[in-house]
Every structure is written in structure tokens, then in C-alpha cells.
């Protein structure tokens, strides 16, 4: 039953019935069923409809979710432990967090159409660098716990894996310690008390520790420095506005969560983590780094720098398997810092500190023992068996305290805390808050100015801030303006109804460690979502904890590892990976302690079955797993998928199914039925979570029952071996996927069919102009296709870069460049793009091929034509003098129907990648350096 005049399916899927008929005619098939029969091998087809609830309308689904979530009880949280209440500035909530111009953008690999978010991420790096005192900061990791693990990884690489111990100074938060253990175990890294010796790679300083106490670690840090041990600080960034920068205390690396910079707790995530390093460690740092370079006209412009460190290039030798970041959340945190500026941040931090000290001094005066003498925001009280009772009493007043154990209670203040809270909490202990609390921060107060850069001072009024956020968004090309035809990225619609619940109070403001009885609604939604995803993929159990596809890969491989170990076959450590695999596969395998053996691909792009048989046989005794992507990264449904799984099982291996291309399977075939033992799903691709301009991502895994005991747990849920900081990872965005599945139901199959239809339509339209590199049976592709543009380079010197940049002049984001085949473009239209938009893309690509032909014929010189000069900015096109052999109109309005489109003007011309990598600039210098330079 639906009350809406149109089903949501018709809103989600772009092409209407007439469009579908026209597309089928162009391809030359009679029906969608006929096309699917040609494209998808019969042997893997699911012969029934998915057992999902019938589709609900937008209003119905929202109402249903609202009822479920009303079972959540939101109290004021004083739990802390890495998650704090925040006041999201409304100007940021409305203009950034809930603005599709920000949340539907892709990772800024195409620098020229990403200058807005690159500028904000550059500001993020500047912010982190200023707070930590370390010169190089990356543009965000996934959460604090994994950031700490990544920092350990930096230390291991720094010592070239010759040292294997990590010493601790102060206890890390329990979830951080658990993730460190998860990550250390497969690599034989020992986390070993506070002793420092010749085998110690790093000293991890929890600043403050799990109880909120700043210990005296001066001696340990000095000893570490003398022994060449790297010093890692895990620090609360808000505390750093009022305490010494970690670099001044000896830190080589600093990490932490930026959550309390205006990002809601959201029952655990998503939030950005920061990572900053000393200069010598720059190239060992994982994840994205924004660098400043120049464009073709010498103007400054931003780009992602030093990408050769990353998994898509270095594969199993990469600095980490990390692929995504938390761009949207990093940008929110930066906007929060810009909104408040250094003085506002200091005021917030000081107020929080005074509240904490008021409680600590009050408790001490009342004879209640308080741990430690130096703190920022957290007071841990020793209460001899009364912890639970005090917390229960606090709950009656609507406040949640942290029960650490029977004898200890933690109280963490945040920017939402009030004097009334302080009084009430003090009273629970039979104490009175101290009237005028003094400071108990470690060392000297933060000296000198910080965040002197103009960006952190210019946007104090809401008018300025609103326009700043709009100005940046306008520089970028996101899904709210045009199709983003990135192959392998599935840039489909992120519907407004799916997004709305993320902002709901009873979703956004839940602490991940709130009592279970307060989170029943969330847990119901999660259980339902897990069961739906299990049905869709054909598995027995699903975990939603991994907060990126790469994390899912890692969790899946750990489950396989755990399974082999549990059977006394812990020696199985060989992971077979086809040469066409995405770089995260080998990088994840390396992190899971496995050795990668590459399986060849045949000329038509499929796994070479003979080579697979040979390698599975050769490594049979030690075979742990095969990782394979289906349909393949070449966009083709291989015939032999079931045989491939059988060969691996025959030799005692497990099959890891990379679900990157699940958008071609949902409703048509299930990885579990094909023979996979484990599979990750990118909820940010197939299941509508927006890409956020480069994260968040969610990468749950489904497993067969024999692997279920080896899925990650969490200390807050009474288990362990977590791969993420929070029990349910990026919980607050899971309702997006819940809404999508609830509104589509079994019609998810139709979305898949139209995605495949659209890709084959694109092939039919472009096949005469470009060669399509790989096709499956019947000449059909799956949901994406590779256009071989290398011939253009041979004939006219026009490169894949030129084509990608020229597409910007036509108002498009380029398709995926040079993956999985160098010099080619991979195009994925998705089911959400209307036929008219797919046509517009086809026409642009055809026009570009014609332009290349004119270069080939010599009509335009090879070094001065609209392709090599692309993209064209307004300033160039409007300049007084025009010396190019093509017209201004040809430069900026190349499409014939120029009048009908709203022109996207790139803010910069082509960015110089080489200059950016040769001379790395990754933060904005403080104002004092400008004046120094001027002197």
C-alpha cells in the first residue's frame, strides 16, 4: 500500500518507461529481461524475488523509522570516552551538513572541479597543524582508534619493520586499545606496557589518559627520544587550544578525533580523525593529503598530493589500506573552527575545563577521591562500590555518567554542559561544586597566538559564513549539478528522504556507549538492516561495524584468518588476488598478515582460470583466500564465477568477494549463492549513502555461518577484536540505507536492471566513437564500461587527462581515469541518471572525439587546442586578447545546446601535479610568516 501518486522507485530511477523503450531499441533488444539474460550468466541468477518488505512511500518509511527511533532515549551525556555532546552551529548544519552541494560530491581526485572542498580540507590540515604544532597533517582518517593504529603503522615503517614493540604512556581509551590489539596481532606487533628497549618502535602517549588524567610522561618521552623511538600523542583537539602543542612536548605524530568540533555523536560516527606528523615522516603517512600547487596560469590551486603513497598505486606496499577519508566531517569540523575562531575555541575549552575543575575540587572538598591532579574535561571519582548506584541516580535527572567499574565513575563535560549540570552532578556525590575553580591543565598555558590565518578570522558574522560556504560549494561539481559518471564509484541518487533522519535528535545525539535500554530503537533498525543486507547478498550474518570498504576487506580477511586458526590451520597465509583487483585488496591482505600472490588475467579481462588453478595448487597447503571482484573491475560478468569459488574451496581456501560492483547484482544474483564465504558491501555506493566529497563510507561485511564467530566485536558490547572505534561504526548514516531498502523493497532488482540497461545503452551510443575495452557474453557489459581512449593518444597526442579536463568545459565530472587500465576511462551511469543526462554525456564524449580528430588532422596544433588547454576559466575566455586557433565560444560553450544549460565555470585552469609533488605545501602558513617574508 502506498499513499503517494508515484512510487519512490520512480523517483529513484532516472529513465521512465518511454526512455527505457528508446534505450532498448538503441541497444537492439526487445525487453529488459532479454538484455539481462544476455548480460548475466544464467548459472548465477537468483530465481526468486528478494524477500524484503513491499516498498513504502517516502512518508510511510519516515513515519515507520520515526516510530522505531522513538524507542531511543536521549539523555545529556557525560560519558565522554572519546565522544562528546556538541552544538552544531545552525549555519553549518543547514549550509553544509544538509547541503547536497557538499555531501553529494566525490573524492577530489579531479582537482579543477573540487577547489571548494579542497580549500576547506586544506584549512583542516592547517587547523590540525596549528593545534598539534606538527608541520604536516593529512585530510582525515576514519576514527580515533584506527588513527592510533595508523600512527603505529607509521612507526613500524619508519623503523623498516625491524622493531616490533609499542610502549604505552598512560592508558588509552578501551576501544582504542582494543583496535590497536586487533591491528597489531596479525603483524606480530607487541603492545607491551611502559618498558622501552631496542625493539620499541613507538611510545603511545594518551594525553590525557582513559580516565581523563594527564600523567607525567616527561621521563618516558626523553627515554624514547634517546632510543630513537617515535613518540605518538593521542590528544583531544579541543584541549590543545588551551594546552601546549604535542610537538613542543616531543611528539613525532599526533592523532585524535575531531568529533567535538561540531559533529554530532550519532551513536558512534561518522567523525573525522586527525593525523599530523613531523616532516621526516611525511611520506610514511597514510591517507589523503591536500597540497597547494599552481594552475596552468600560475594561480594557486589545490590538489591531492603524494598519491603514490596510497593503496591504489602501491598496492601491498602501500602505507595502509586506507582509501576513503571523512571529508564531510572534516569539513564540518573545520567550519566549526572557522565559525568560532581561536578565541571562541579557547573560550569553549576554558569553560569546559572550569566545569570539570569545579566538580573535581568540590568532590575533593567533600572527601571524595578524584583520580589525578591534572585534567581537561573529565573527572574520574573513586566511589567504592557505588558507581552503578550513582550513575542510576544521575539517570533519574536525565544525565548519563560513565561507569568505569564498580568503584569508578567518570564525568566528562562538553560545550552543552551547564552550571546546573555541574551542581546536580556534584550533589550525586554529596558534594557542592567549587565556586571559583582554578586551572589544572598540564604545563604552561598555550603561549602565543595560533590560528592566525585569515580564514579563521574572516567569517564571524553569519552572513559572511553563509556566503563563504556557498562560495566554496559553487567551485565544485557535485551530483546536485550534473552526472558524475565515475566507474566503480556508483554515484547514484542520495534521496532527501533518505538523508533526513541523520539529523533527527534521537539519532544524532546518542552516545555510542549509552545504556542498551536507551538505544533499543537504533538496535532494532540495525538488526533489521542486517537481515535485509543478508537476504540481498545471501549470507547468514552481517556486521555493520567497518566504516569504509577497506575496513570491510580487512575485517573479512581477519574473519578468514580467525577461521583457519580455529581449525589449527593458522599457517594458511597466502592470499590470491587477480591482477585487475583494486589496490585496497592487496593492501588489506598485507595488513591482515597475508602474503599476496597475483593471479593473471586473460586478454579479455577475466581471471585466467588456468593460472588460478596452478597457483591454488602450488600454494594449496598454505592457501588462505582468494579476493575477487564480481562483476570484475573491468565491468564484465565473467562466466566462471562459480568455478572460481570451487577451485579455491577445493584447496582449502576461503573466497572473499569484493562487493564494489554490487550495484550490478542486487536482486539478480547473490554473492553467497555464487560461492563466496565473505563479502563487503559499500553502502556509500550501492546503498545510497552519499560520498560526502570524500567520505564517510560504510563497508559492512556479510559472512557464511562458519565465519560468524570471527566477526569483529567491541569492548562496549562485552566482546573484543573491533576494527573501528564504535560498535556499529558510522551508525548515524545507517538510516540512509535503511530508508533506501525500505522504499525500494524487491524493486531493488529494477534499479540493478536499469543500471545495466544504462551502461549498455551508453556502449550502444559510444561504440562507434570509442572502442569498448571489455565485453562479456553477447557483447554486453555489466553496469559500467571501459572506453579505450589510448587510440586518441596514438593518433593525435590527446591524453586521457585532456579528455577528462575537457569534459569540465562541457559541464561534467570526468569518468574514472586510468583504473583499472591505464590511459582509459571507465564510465558508470547508474540507474538514477535520466536518459537525457546520459545522452548529454554521450554527446560531449562524441564531440570531444571529434575535437581530437581535428587535432589529428592538423586543424589545431597539438600544443594549442581546446583539449590540451582545458579546462577554460571565465577569466581566460573573457580576457582582452584571445590568441588561440579556436573561438571563445568553442572554448567555454562547446556543446551545441549551450543555451539550455547553466554553465559550470571551473575556478582554476589545469592544476600542475608535478609542481605540487615536487614542492609540497600542505598547510597555510601563519600570518607571522608572511610578515617575516616581507621583511
Amino acid at each position: 500500500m502506498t499513499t503517494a501518486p508515484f512510487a519512490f522507485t520512480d523517483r529513484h530511477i532516472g529513465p521512465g518507461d518511454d526512455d527505457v523503450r528508446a534505450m532498448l531499441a538503441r541497444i537492439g533488444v526487445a525487453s529488459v529481461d532479454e538484455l539481462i539474460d544476455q548480460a548475466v550468466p544464467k548459472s548465477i541468477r537468483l530465481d526468486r524475488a528478494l524477500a524484503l518488505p513491499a516498498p513504502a512511500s517516502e512518508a510511510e518509511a519516515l513515519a515507520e523509522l520515526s516510530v522505531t527511533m522513538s524507542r531511543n532515549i536521549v539523555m545529556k551525556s557525560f560519558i565522554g570516552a572519546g565522544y562528546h555532546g556538541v552544538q552544531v552551529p545552525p549555519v553549518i548544519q543547514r549550509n553544509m551538513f544538509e547541503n547536497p552541494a557538499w555531501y553529494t560530491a566525490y573524492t577530489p581526485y579531479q582537482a579543477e572541479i573540487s577547489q571548494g572542498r579542497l580549500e576547506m580540507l586544506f584549512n583542516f590540515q592547517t587547523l590540525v597543524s596549528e593545534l598539534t604544532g606538527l608541520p604536516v597533517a593529512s585530510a582525515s582518517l576514519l576514527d580515533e582508534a584506527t588513527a592510533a593504529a595508523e600512527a603505529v603503522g607509521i612507526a613500524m615503517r619508519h623503523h623498516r619493520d625491524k622493531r616490533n614493540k609499542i610502549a604505552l604512556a598512560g592508558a588509552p581509551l578501551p576501544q582504542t586499545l582494543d583496535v590497536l590489539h586487533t591491528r597489531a596481532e596479525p603483524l606480530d606487533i607487541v603492545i607491551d606496557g611502559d618498558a622501552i628497549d631496542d625493539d620499541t618502535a613507538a611510545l603511545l602517549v594518551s594525553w590525557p589518559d582513559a580516565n581523563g588524567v594527564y600523567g607525567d610522561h616527561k621521563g618516558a618521552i626523553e627515554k624514547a627520544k634517546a632510543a630513537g623511538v617515535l613518540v605518538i600523542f593521542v590528544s583531544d583537539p579541543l584541549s590543545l587550544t588551551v594546552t601546549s602543542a604535542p610537538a613542543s612536548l616531543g611528539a613525532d605524530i599526533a592523532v585524535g578525533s575531531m568529533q567535538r568540533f561540531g559533529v554530532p555523536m550519532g551513536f558512534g560516527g561518522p567523525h573525522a580523525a586527525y593525523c599530523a606528523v613531523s616532516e621526516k615522516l611525511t611520506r610514511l603517512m597514510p591517507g589523503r593529503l591536500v597540497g597547494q600547487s599552481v594552475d596552468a596560469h600560475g594561480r594557486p590551486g589545490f590538489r591531492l598530493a603524494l598519491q603514490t603513497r596510497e593503496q591504489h598505486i602501491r598496492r601491498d606496499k602501500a602505507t595502509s589500506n586506507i582509501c576513503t577519508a571523512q571529508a564531510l566531517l572534516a569539513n564540518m569540523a573545520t567550519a566549526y573552527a572557522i565559525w568560532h575562531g581561536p578565541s571562541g575555541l579557547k573560550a569553549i575549552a576554558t569553560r569546559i575545563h572550569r566545569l570539570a575543575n569545579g566538580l573535581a575540587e568540590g568532590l575533593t572538598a567533600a572527601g571524595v577521591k578524584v583520580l589525578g591532579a591534572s585534567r581537561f574535561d573529565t573527572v574520574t571519582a573513586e566511589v567504592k562500590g557505588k558507581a552503578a548506584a550513582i550513575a542510576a541516580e544521575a539517570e533519574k535527572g536525565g544525565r548519563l555518567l560513565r561507569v568505569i567499574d564498580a568503584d569508578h565513575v567518570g564525568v566528562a563535560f562538553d560545550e552543552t554542559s551547564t552550571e546546573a549540570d555541574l551542581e546536580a552532578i556534584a550533589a550525586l556525590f554529596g558534594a557542592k561544586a567549587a565556586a571559583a575553580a582554578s586551572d589544572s591543565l598540564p604545563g604552561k598555558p598555550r603561549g602565543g597566538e595560533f590560528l592566525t590565518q585569515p580564514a579563521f578570522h574572516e567569517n564571524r558574522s553569519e552572513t559572511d559564513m553563509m556566503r563563504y560556504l556557498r562560495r566554496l560549494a559553487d567551485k565544485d561539481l557535485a551530483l546536485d549539478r550534473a552526472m558524475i559518471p565515475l566507474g566503480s564509484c556508483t554515484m547514484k541518487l542520495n534521496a532527501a528522504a533518505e538523508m533526513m533522519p541523520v539529523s533527527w535528535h534521537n539519532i544524532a545525539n546518542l552516545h555510542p556507549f549509552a545504556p542498551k535500554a536507551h538505544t533499543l530503537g537504533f538496535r532494532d533498525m540495525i538488526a533489521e538492516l542486517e537481515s535485509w543486507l543478508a537476504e540481498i547478498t545471501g549470507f547468514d550474518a552481517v556486521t555493520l561495524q567497518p566504516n569504509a570498504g577497506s575496513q570491510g576487506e580487512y575485517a573479512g580477511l581477519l574473519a578468514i584468518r580467525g577461521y583457519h586458526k580455529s581449525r589449527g590451520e593458522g599457517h594458511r597465509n597466502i592470499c590470491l588476488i587477480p591482477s585487475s583487483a583494486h589496490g585496497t585488496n592487496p593492501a588489506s591482505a598485507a595488513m591482515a598478515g597475508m602474503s599476496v600472490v597475483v593471479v593473471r588475467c586473460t586478454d579479455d579481462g577475466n581471471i585466467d582460470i588456468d593460472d588460478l588453478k596452478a597457483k591454488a595448487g602450488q600454494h594449496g597447503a598454505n592457501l588462505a583466500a582468494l579476493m575477487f571482484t564480481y562483476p570484475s573491475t573491468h565491468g564484465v560478468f565473467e562466466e566462471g564465477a562459480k568455478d572460481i569459488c570451487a577451485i579455491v574451496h577445493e584447496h582449502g581456501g576461503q573466497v572473499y568477494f569484493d562487493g564494489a560492483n554490487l550495484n550490478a547484482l542486487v536482486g539478480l544474483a547473490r554473492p553467497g549463492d555464487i560461492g563466496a564465504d565473505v563479502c563487503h558491501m559499500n553502502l556509500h555506493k550501492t546503498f545510497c549513502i552519499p560520498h560526502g566529497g570524500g567520505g564517510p563510507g560504510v563497508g559492512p561485511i556479510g559472512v557464511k555461518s562458519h565465519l560468524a564467530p570471527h566477526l569483529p566485536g567491541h569492548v562496549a558490547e562485552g566482546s573484543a577484536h573491533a576494527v573501528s572505534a564504535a560498535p556499529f561504526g558510522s551508525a548515524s548514516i545507517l538510516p540512509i540505507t535503511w530508508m533506501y531498502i525500505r522504499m525500494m523493497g524487491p524493486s531493488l532488482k529494477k534499479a540493478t536492471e536499469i543500471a545495466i540497461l544504462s551502461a549498455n545503452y551508453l556502449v550502444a551510443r559510444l561504440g562507434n566513437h570509442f572502442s569498448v575495452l571489455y565485453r562479456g557474453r553477447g557483447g554486453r557489459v555489466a553496469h559500467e564500461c571501459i572506453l579505450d581512449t589510448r587510440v586518441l593518444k596514438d593518433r593525435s597526442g590527446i591524453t586521457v587527462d585532456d579528455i577528462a579536463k575537457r569534459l569540465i568545459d562541457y559541464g561534467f565530472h570526468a569518468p574514472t581515469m586510468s583504473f583499472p587500465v591505464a590511459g582509459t576511462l571507465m564510465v558508470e551511469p547508474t540507474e538514477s541518471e535520466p536518459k537525457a543526462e546520459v545522452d548529454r554525456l554521450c554527446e560531449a564524449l562524441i564531440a570531444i572525439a571529434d575535437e581530437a580528430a581535428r587535432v589529428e588532422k592538423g586543424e589545431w596544433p597539438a600544443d594549442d587546442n581546446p583539449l590540451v588547454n582545458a579546462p577554460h576559466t571565465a577569466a581566460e575566455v573573457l580576457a582582452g586578447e584571445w590568441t588561440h586557433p579556436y573561438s571563445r565560444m568553442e572554448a567555454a560553450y562547446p556543446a551545441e545546446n549551450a543555451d539550455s544549460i547553466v554553465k559550470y565555470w571551473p575556478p582554476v585552469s589545469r592544476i600542475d601535479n608535478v609542481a605540487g609533488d615536487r614542492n609540497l605545501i600542505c598547510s597555510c602558513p601563519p600570518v607571522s610568516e608572511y610578515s617575516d617574508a616581507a621583511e
Partner: protein
Amino acid sequence: MATTYYTEDHEWLRVEGDVATVGITDYAQEQLGDIVFIELPETGKSLSKGDTAVVVESVKAASDVYAPVNGEVTEANEALSSEPALVNSAAAGDGWLWKMKLSDTSQLEGLMDEAAYNAHIG
């Protein structure tokens, strides 16, 4: 009198006595494109044939350069730290990567001369 040898992996070795200077060929630098960073070996490091000695990075690729023979690193070309583009502009000259003292000169016998290398890259 120096003799120059080539490997299938597009390296050259200029051998004088028992010391070899090693670099990548002009063909290799052209394939890699603009080089932005070079990770050099530490002096004194002992290398066996096939060990990764150097990593050469362009904007889009990172390539390992393998030790073509056994020996000990006697010098790395520190000029490349500030000017990696030397490998592009002078692959066979100022863009040399490292020098090594050979421990087994008989390993040179399996390598190519210039004519054979030119035939190899066709």
C-alpha cells in the same frame, strides 16, 4: 676504462674496477614521466641481486629499482633529494642513483651491452 651494462629492468651500470654506478635508462625515465621523489639507499647497505634499492616516484606511479648485482652501497646521489628531475633530464649522467662496490663481478656477465639493450626495448 669504464664499461656500461644494461638490465632487462631498464637499469644501466657503469663499472670502473669493482665499483658500479647505477641509474635508470632514458627509456625508463620517459615511461615514468616527471619524477617527483626518489627514495635513496643508505650508504653501507648491502644489497643482493634483486633487492629493492631505490624507489622512483612520478605523480602517478612508484617503481622499485632493483639491485642488478650483489654489493654494498658506497654512495647515493644526494643531489636527487632536492632535484629529482635530474633523472628526467640526465638519466644516464647526473641523474645516477647510487654507487656500489661489487662483491661478485662475474654477475656482470649476464647483463646486456648497449646494442643488446636497444634491441630489447625495440
